[in-house]
């Protein structure tokens, strides 16, 4: 990412050359921003085997649209917007063909997650198995959530972006992002509490 003024100047020059039809400097833009794009795709899609393909498609979309880039936002933000929109499309397609996580997880995974939800928070952060179970729990919660909730929560909680950055990427105003985040959290908490409330019930039966 561009950090110093000279970096930014160089980036502007690369972008102008690409806009003029020179493909070569686009490679430098890719190398500068690929980590950010990979991170976004990885957190939004959560499918390691597809991250590279989706990132590549996002870069191709950016290349095709680069003439419309008008330097009003930073190139990184503009690229992140294209990446997030591409992930949106992917998630909607995936949602239409219905959630893999449930099927991949099976009964074993579900039981493991229920066990995690049953335990008190202090015990929850111990060992690689718990980390794996927490990861699966978050994946399951995200998979169940509406795509809009999933994207905004991922950007906030996993990408650790500020509300202002999210607003810029999603092309929304800051207060809309705050409200959407709040609603998404509320919905996800309902799901989270449902898992937690299963614990004592399951425990009393056995």
């Amino acid at each position, binding site marked *: 990412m561009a950090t110093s003024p000279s970096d930014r100047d160089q980036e502007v020059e690369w972008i102008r050359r690409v806009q003029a039809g020179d493909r070569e400097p*686009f*490679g430098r833009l890719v190398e500068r921003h690929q980590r950010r794009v*990979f991170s976004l795709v990885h957190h939004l899609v959560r499918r390691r085997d597809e991250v590279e393909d989706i990132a590549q498609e996002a870069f*191709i979309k950016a290349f095709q649209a680069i003439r419309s880039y008008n330097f009003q936002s930073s190139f990184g933000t503009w690229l992140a917007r294209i990446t997030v929109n591409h992930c949106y499309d992917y998630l909607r397609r995936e949602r239409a063909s219905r959630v893999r996580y449930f099927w991949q997880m099976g009964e074993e995974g579900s039981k493991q997650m229920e066990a995690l939800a049953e335990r008190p928070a202090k015990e*929850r952060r111990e060992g690689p198995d718990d980390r794996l179970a927490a*990861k699966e729990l*978050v994946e399951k919660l995200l998979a169940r959530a509406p795509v809009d909730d999933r994207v905004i929560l991922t950007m906030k909680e996993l990408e650790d972006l500020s509300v202002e950055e999210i607003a810029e990427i999603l092309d929304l105003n800051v207060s809309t992002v705050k409200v959407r985040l*709040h609603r998404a959290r509320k919905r996800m908490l309902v799901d*989270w509490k449902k898992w937690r409330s299963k614990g004592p019930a399951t425990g009393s039966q056995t």
Partner: protein
Amino acid sequence: MSCDDFRLMLEEAREGAAPEALGRHLEVCAECRTFAEDWRGLSEAFRAAAEPIPEPSFGFTERLLRRLATSSGAERAAIEFIERVGRRVAFATLFLAMVTLLALGLPSTGPVREPSGAEMMAQAYQVSNSSGIVFADDTWMSQAGRPVGQNEEPAPSQK
């Protein structure tokens, strides 16, 4: 302020110091305290779910630039045309090769010819001779290809 407002404040407060009003509200509102606790638990799960970001594989940028080169206008059309024609040529070659192999692999029986009427008559004549049957007129037979002198009746001796 409603509980929703305080919860919104709580979420924003994670990034900085909690406002005093929020602290006071949490002391008196059990529901909001539960909300805060639940949200903290979920945030922990999110943090536990963080894992290393996959690195681009070797040659990612080069592959991407190659793909961009092939996806631009005329070049792409030309490559698609070559690929399409190439595929057809390959299929035709494969088809011809299979036909040739099938033709070579089949047993070569050759054409079957019906025996002509004359040949059948000749065979019948030979059979009749061996069994002592005499045809009334065998001139026709000799014309039909029977070897001259073979199976001919001996001429009566003229004394």
